[in-house]
């Protein structure tokens, strides 16, 4: 019987197995940032331990870096965290792309961009959106700070082998429908905890026709479906993306790697513990209306009615969410007015995303009631976009063009949505207070965010698009 990619990669990394215990799993790449690492390095110091494999670590600063007026950091506590990471990396010999470094950016944008992210690797980071790297056929998952310390000390983790799940996207993707809409539709259909205890492989033609950047958007939000990790079997598109990147294998080594990477793809007769299917015909541009990522609908729909739900706890959850969001049951999604637009985050801040948004706003202007910002995912993304003139399209339309970082996705820096105001955001979480205390977040794709910026309310982007993105 054939194996799926999850089993192949997992089995390849088991250092020690004993029945009834979690497996001791080897970690190939450990990414670090300033927010979840200081206590881990402190733990090493207190116990006189060292970093076992600094060569398998890579650090950057992203969560609370400012995105304007660099290099001034007004927040003294953020500054302490940023300085602490620099000090720790120096002391323990961990490679660092710090503020101002050409490789700096959101940790889940730079890993792939630098060629550090490769098929078949186990990748961890003290950040739940580490699942992003699964787009390459890696097993990549977020860990807590104690586990960060464990990986730093031992380059391993004790992990119970998760179950496997296939989510099959069936059919051709419709015009104006993006990777973001696929993953939002999956979460809305199957629920915020459907993936708990599983690693998910996304399959189907609709998935394998996507570019690597689009695949990253999908795997990025597998955590929003509760999955331990999400991944996609490597193919020629994967291999082409990696070729020539800074830390990718070169020459003969690349050819050898390519053969190995492609062999990791799930076998045609592979099976999974669970298989779910979604038809592309069910997927239109999405907008979330609630306070978790499963609370979303196609843009042609309305805010749901409590009477749509059978379980009392779901009715209560809807009421709580609509109270926080200040929305009424039955309101058409296109009637919701917004005051902020955020294009950025590890979900949607790559060149493809910026191009798709720019394509919608070209020659138009941001609505007078809206403040719109674009935060490229990395220095490199910003530079490439500027070379194409994308920055000019945004600036001419009235967007602010910022430096890279996590920014308004979690509002740890100064990019905050004020209480009671609404933001159309290309990020990944619409939890209460996520973008600022009392702020109301609606998750959308970059073209949908761009269209909302111009109209001042949600619109079906397909109505204003001329050419497919």
């Amino acid at each position, binding site marked *: 019987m054939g194996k799926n990619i999850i089993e192949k990669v997992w089995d390849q990394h088991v250092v020690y197995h004993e029945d009834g215990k979690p497996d*001791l799993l080897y970690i190939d790449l450990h990414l670090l940032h300033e927010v979840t690492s200081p206590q881990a390095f402190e733990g090493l110091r207190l116990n006189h331990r060292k970093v076992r494999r600094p060569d398998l670590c890579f650090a950057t600063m992203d969560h609370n870096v400012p995105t304007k007026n660099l290099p001034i950091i007004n927040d003294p506590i953020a500054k302490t965290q940023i300085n602490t990471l620099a000090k720790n990396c120096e002391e323990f010999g961990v490679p660092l792309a710090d503020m101002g470094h050409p490789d700096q950016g959101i940790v889940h944008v730079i890993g792939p961009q630098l060629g550090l992210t490769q098929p078949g690797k186990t990748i961890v980071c003290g950040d739940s959106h580490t699942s992003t790297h699964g787009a390459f056929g890696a097993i990549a998952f977020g860990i807590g700070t104690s586990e960060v310390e464990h990986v730093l000390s031992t380059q391993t983790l004790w992990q119970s082998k998760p179950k496997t799940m296939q989510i099959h996207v069936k059919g051709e993707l419709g015009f104006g429908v993006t990777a973001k809409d696929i993953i939002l539709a999956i979460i809305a259909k199957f629920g915020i905890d459907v993936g708990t205890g599983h690693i998910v492989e996304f399959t189907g033609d609709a998935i394998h026709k996507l570019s690597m950047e689009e695949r990253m958007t999908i795997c990025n939000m597998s955590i929003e479906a509760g999955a331990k990790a999400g991944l996609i079997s490597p193919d020629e598109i994967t291999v082409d993306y990696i070729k020539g990147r800074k830390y990718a294998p070169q020459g003969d080594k690349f050819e050898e790697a390519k053969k190995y990477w492609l062999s990791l793809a799930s076998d045609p007769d592979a099976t999974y513990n669970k298989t779910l299917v979604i038809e592309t015909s069910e997927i239109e541009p999405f907008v979330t209306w609630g306070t978790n990522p499963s609370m979303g609908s196609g843009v042609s729909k309305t805010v749901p009615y409590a009477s749509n739900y059978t379980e009392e706890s779901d009715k209560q959850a809807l009421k709580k969410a609509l109270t926080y969001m200040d929305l009424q049951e039955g309101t058409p999604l296109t009637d919701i007015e917004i005051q902020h637009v955020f294009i950025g985050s590890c979900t949607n801040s790559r060149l493809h995303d910026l191009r798709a948004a720019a394509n919608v706003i070209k020659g138009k202007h941001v609505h007078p009631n809206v403040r719109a910002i674009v935060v490229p995912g990395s220095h490199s993304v910003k530079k490439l976009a500027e070379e194409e003139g994308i920055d000019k399209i945004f600036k001419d339309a009235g967007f602010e063009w910022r430096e890279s970082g996590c920014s308004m996705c979690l509002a740890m820096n100064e990019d905050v949505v004020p209480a009671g105001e609404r933001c159309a955001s290309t990020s990944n979480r619409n939890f209460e207070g996520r973008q600022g205390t009392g702020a109301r977040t609606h998750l959308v794709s970059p073209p949908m965010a761009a269209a909302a910026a111009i109209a001042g309310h949600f619109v079906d982007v397909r109505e204003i698009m001329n050419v497919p993105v």
Partner: protein
Amino acid sequence: MEPINIVKSVVTPLNRKNVDTDQIISKEFLKRIERTGFGQFVFYHWRFDQDGQPIEDFVLNQPKYKGSKILVAHENFGCGSSREHAPWAILDYGFNVVVAPSFADIFHNNCFKNGILPIELKVSEIEELLAKGEQSVLEAEVNLQNQTLTADGKVYHFEINPYYKEMLLNGWDEIALTFKYEDYIKNYEKKRVQFS
């Protein structure tokens, strides 16, 4: 971390599904570089209004639950961000045990590293505990060795992976344990697939 076995206290009923780690500890409190001192910020925006005044009807502000060590909540507790600041805040506030029908994976893992016992019970059992906890003052006793939670004369049995049970009962340092497997790690590193 501190060993844990028997925990006795009043139950705090938090009757919500999908409690995410952003609610457990909001992002403005993540900038500390220590593991301690997060308890004062736990569920901050549910406990306090915009002027910093306590919101009276939120469970953690009700005097009858004061000193509680056992938090009971609904499905998918701890979803979202991997921030270990969430279990740090829960522990620092005084909870050693969280009881729910299901937990998000990363939060669940993080509990075991910090001496917090996450207990999974059936939805019907959770609803019973929540209802009793809300109506009056429900005292409970958790016994990890026996894998039981006893409340109002009823014994609820729970499952736990023996590896994690042992770790919690002994308060072990997992890294020190892993060092005993160093030969396996070294051997693995010799044959590891590596291209660059």
